[in-house]
């Protein structure tokens, strides 16, 4: 094994960063789709319909106990077969990134459903009742009063879930997706297995920077959205 080459280490950034947009696109689309699905599942769990409650609870149980890499393979190999056999739709020529997005969305919808559910439940029902009594409709009471408070509660857990999603998205290269990790993996292969330390170190640094950005923006959002709550904890003593 050749010694650690700082020059190679620097060159890795130039090799893998062009694929950062692929990684980011997969992450962003997965966050969007898993959030939408998560809302539907949380709604099912909180709703009054017994069928929906059972279905959504079952979904959360199954998906939460599936390892990401297992689900990734199941979706990649299983979904085309399933669709071909049941609906006669051929999706074998779909891009690999689509399978990754589907797998990550399915997986993180179950985590996010739990985040949304507990955030919603943390807002006292009295808030809704008070809104109804000043003439708001159920929907207005939800999006003007309950939702803004639930978002503030959900934000730290949401950021944690997104962090987990980003890390799991790094697994996508196992089905041959050419994202940032895939580019790094190719680079190592091209060097016959040499310089893997430099490559992975460079990748780790890129992920660290990614995380700092996410952490800081979550903190900023929390502060910005949670006016009523955060200011209170600081200046309550002054007023009272």
């Amino acid at each position, binding site marked *: 094994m050749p010694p650690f080459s700082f020059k190679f280490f620097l060159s890795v950034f130039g090799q893998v960063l062009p694929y950062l947009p692929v990684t980011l696109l997969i992450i962003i689309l997965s966050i969007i789709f898993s959030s939408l699905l998560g809302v539907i599942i949380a709604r099912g769990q909180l709703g009054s319909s017994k069928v929906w409650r059972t279905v959504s609870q079952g979904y959360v149980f199954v998906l939460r106990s599936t390892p990401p890499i297992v689900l990734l393979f199941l979706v990649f190999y299983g979904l085309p077969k399933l669709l071909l056999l049941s609906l006669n739709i051929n999706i074998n020529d779909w891009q690999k990134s689509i399978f990754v997005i589907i797998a990550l969305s399915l997986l993180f919808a179950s985590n996010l459903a739990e985040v949304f559910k507990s955030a919603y439940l943390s807002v*006292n029902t*009295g*808030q809704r*009742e*008070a*809104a*109804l*009594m*000043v*003439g*708001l*409709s159920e929907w*207005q009471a939800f999006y*003007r*009063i309950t939702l*803004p*408070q639930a978002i*503030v509660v959900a934000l730290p857990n949401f950021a944690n879930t997104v962090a987990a999603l980003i890390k799991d998205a790094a697994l996508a290269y196992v089905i041959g997706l050419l994202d940032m990790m895939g580019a790094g993996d190719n680079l190592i292969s091209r060097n016959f297995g040499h310089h893997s330390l430099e490559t992975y170190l460079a990748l780790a640094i890129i992920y660290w920077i990614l995380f700092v950005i996410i952490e800081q923006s979550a903190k900023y959002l929390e502060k910005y959205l949670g*006016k*009523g*709550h955060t*200011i*209170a*904890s600081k*200046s*309550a003593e002054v*007023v*009272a």
Partner: protein
Amino acid sequence: MLKVRNFKKKYHQHEVLKGIDIEVNQGDVVALLGPSGSGKTTFLRGLAFLTPGDSGVITFDDQKINIESATPSDIKKLRRKMGFVFQNFNLFANKTAIQNVEEGLIIGHKVSKPEAKRRATEALKKVGLQQYANHYPSQLSGGQAQRVGIARAAALNPEIILLDEPTSALDPELVADVLQVIKHLADEGKTMIVVTHEMAFARDVADKVVFMDKGLVVEQNEPTSFFDDPKSPRLKEFLSRISAVNVADNSFEYEKAVQK
């Protein structure tokens, strides 16, 4: 103005309200008393359909609602005539004091923004909190929060205000200010139903006192006869059980408020 007939409510097998009849006239302040578990709060929340009753008839002016067949639009129409003050305030935690008052005016009642601001400011002034307009609920003391709660209900100018134990969650020294605000509303001729444990307040402010026990109205009368000449054994027992100390204490808090 408001007439309720045979209001019933069951939780599982337990019958909480066994048929309440009550009548409230324009300008009346009705104090609803009774031991805990007698169903006072359940009844008040039932009137506003927050926890709907099982059966009975509510007549409000020309609107007659059969509880069993009430539609969402019936309920909405009824609620527009009502203001509700909650035991634990339920101020919108994500809005400032003045936004709490404006919310119902702008969104619920389609009042223009400048007009809503004017009315909300006036409502806060009335409860003595205009300088707290831009404070969030978490920055207010319990007494201040409840006064904002009352301002929020009163600003919509409802025909009746329902107050559910408005001072029960407050520290004793904050009770007086809130009672004072309620008394002001009474003096203005507001119609109100107040569920309360403040005997001195009920005696002084109410036009009618209703005593509930075990899901039934046991006795109702104008305050002087109610307290000085209780008829039913159950009410006699209730009044004697509220210890002399307690009454003296409440009176003290209340008189302090009146003297201000």
